[in-house]
């Protein structure tokens, strides 16, 4: 056993740090740190910088224009990016659709769509969940009917993150109601500018509108936009969800959140001393730090096994559960460290006036509220426990 990073991996970490130091502006890092919504231009600008360095698609093989990183390199990149408060790479094109097209798309689809993802020509969003199909994703009802050389799509998608910026959406649609519900689903690429597509923002409890409903009314989609085979979309969807879960542990985000909690608790006063020296609060901080130490290694153990060719199974579900528990506990402690200031109400724009000097406390409240999503999206933690339990029961 050797828990040290190799010299090459350490050199890579230095490269990443150097890149972040020279390319990430303090203004942008501050917005990320203070949980302020980024503009589309800011996210695209960060993608362009990464792409110029060849690092936008760390997970893609080199032949598709990716960086071809190992799982450990990706982990290092994500950890350093999070600790430096770099914007996260918007996952929909890079982390989700890219791998599906590379695995199941036609040559023509790969040639057409992959370079456009890297160049920022397209902004993709995800059309999976529906009002009646959340945890029960296979119960989806948005229909696509084949008519000659195109499909006609009718129905609704929801929880479409950053859909307000997107010009393209990849959708799971029902193409058959025969047999098992999983067997009538297809994977379709839809241009959002097609007549009949409507996007409506959903305001969340932190006041932001990062998710949307997307409605389809007689939307014509060229048949060439079907990925893989008709009625095989569930297989591709599951493949995509495993990719969505590769950084699901969020070690980098948790480490950044712990750094921030230490800073806040070091500055808040309790009985004339920093709150971080209060035994009760310090013990709660220590407990979550200890959990994070173990979880980081669980993450590396599982990445290492994946690098040696073991297919990820219930491990990613385990990481999702523990990773989100740790982040939500860190968020809760940070919010509570602020005491009265945690009563401040985050609002997008914030033009109504806010408490004086409370930017960071507002960020802590907004983070607590917004990160309730961590244990819900990408397959809720209950779904993950079901996956683990199901695998255990089969023995």
């Amino acid at each position, binding site marked *: 056993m050797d828990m040290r990073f190799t010299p090459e991996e350490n050199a890579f970490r230095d490269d990443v740090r150097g890149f972040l130091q020279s390319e990430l502006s303090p203004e942008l890092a501050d917005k990320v740190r203070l949980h302020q919504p980024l503009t589309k231009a800011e996210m695209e600008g960060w993608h362009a910088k990464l792409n110029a360095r060849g690092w936008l698609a760390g997970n893609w093989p080199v032949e598709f224009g990716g960086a071809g990183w190992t799982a450990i390199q990706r982990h290092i990149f994500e950890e350093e990016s999070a600790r430096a408060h770099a914007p996260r790479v918007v996952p929909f094109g890079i982390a989700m659709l890219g791998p599906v097209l590379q695995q199941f798309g036609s040559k023509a689809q790969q040639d057409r769509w992959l370079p456009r993802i890297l160049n920022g020509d397209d902004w993709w969003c995800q059309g999976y*969940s529906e009002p009646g199909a*959340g*945890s*029960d994703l296979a*119960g989806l009802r948005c229909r696509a009917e084949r008519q000659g050389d195109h499909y006609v799509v009718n129905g609704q998608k*929801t*929880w479409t993150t950053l859909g307000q910026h997107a010009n393209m959406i990849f959708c799971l649609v029902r193409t058959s109601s025969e047999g098992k519900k999983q067997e009538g689903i297809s994977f379709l690429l839809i241009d959002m500018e097609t007549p009949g597509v409507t996007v409506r923002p*959903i*305001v*969340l*409890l932190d*006041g932001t509108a990062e998710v949307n409903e997307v409605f389809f009314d007689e939307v014509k989609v060229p048949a060439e936009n079907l990925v893989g085979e008709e009625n095989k979309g569930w297989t591709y969807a599951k493949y995509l969800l495993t990719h969505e879960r590769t950084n699901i542990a969020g070690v980098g985000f948790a480490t950044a959140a712990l750094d921030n909690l230490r800073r806040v608790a070091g*500055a*808040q*006063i*309790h*009985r004339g001393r920093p*709150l971080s020296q*209060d035994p*009760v*609060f310090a013990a*709660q901080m220590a407990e979550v730090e200890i959990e994070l130490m173990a979880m980081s290694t669980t993450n590396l153990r599982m990445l290492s096994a994946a690098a040696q060719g073991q297919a990820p199974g219930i491990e990613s579900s385990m990481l999702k559960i523990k990773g989100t528990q740790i982040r*939500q506990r860190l968020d*809760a402690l940070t*919010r*509570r*460290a*602020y*005491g*009265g*200031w*945690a*009563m*401040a*109400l985050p*609002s997008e724009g914030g033009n*109504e*006036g*806010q*408490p*004086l*000097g*409370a930017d960071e406390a507002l960020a802590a*409240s907004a983070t*607590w*509220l917004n990160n*309730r*999503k961590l*244990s*819900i*999206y990408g397959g*809720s*933690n*209950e779904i993950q*426990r*079901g996956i683990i339990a199901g695998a255990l029961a089969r023995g």
Partner: protein
Amino acid sequence: MDFSLSDEHRMLQDSLRGILNRHTGDDAMAPLLEAGVIEALLTEDEGGFDGSGAAVALVFEELGRAGAALPLIGTMIGRAALAQAGMPDDEARAAFADAEPGTRADRGVAIRADGDRLTGRKTMVAGAEDATHLIVTTADALWLVAARAEGLALTAFPMMDGQRGADLEFAETPAQRLGSLSDFGAVLSRAALAHAARTLGEIEAAVDLTLDYLRTRKQFGRALFDFQALAHRAAELTVEREQARSAVVNLAAHLDAEPHLRDRHVQACKVTVGRVARLVAEESVQLHGGIGMTEEYALAGMIRRLIAGDTAMGDADYHLERFANGEAAWT
């Protein structure tokens, strides 16, 4: 032993429920005042007709249940404190300035008294914009400040609990010392009970909404309540809800007890209700799933009010430490 409401309290409850069913938001304030809601929170000596723990608990539980974010606690504290200090004022609308920036819940970190002048800051002061009187805490004392005193600046903003709050900046602002915090321990304990009871009402509302959702929402062809993992967590919420209710009952019954015993119940109540509020906030969103995070759905406001309820006048962690050390609640 009898835990049921007296006839008078049942009538009060019916009247509040009627008003809160007919009026939402700020519109409920005028009819509530007309119905004597403030007087129900005050003793006869304070210009009211009740002021018992049971009355305070039932009023704020109803307000919490209805999600009514109205600045009544400040006025209750103000009129009771003014009466105790020998300056009764039946017209006073008061705001209670307690929380300070830079500390979780300590007093006197951001504000100090120098003779009869206050200098420093208070934050999250509910109802400050409309107040005639400000009741201000420092490290060890309670102070009266005129709403438009010289050297006082006010910045208002919306708060997590749906009320409007304000930052108050004091620059050698004239103030009158009413007494030590422990002199006013009974009044402050009544305010802690009000916060806890309102949070209890919010806990009940959020749990009820969650149970309804589990009964009606179907996934995989059956109601969510048919999934045992979810059903057990719902059951757990109702167990904890009863704990919160009992902690409120305990404090309500000990508001007039000798200070040490009363303070133990203040702390136990804030710890229990604060922890249950956090649990219910987290679990009710999780059991709902995505819909529980949307502003359009009723749960969003409940979640924000639940976590705000823990924060007011010291959170569960703050009071746990004092309970463990055997310290007074108001020092």
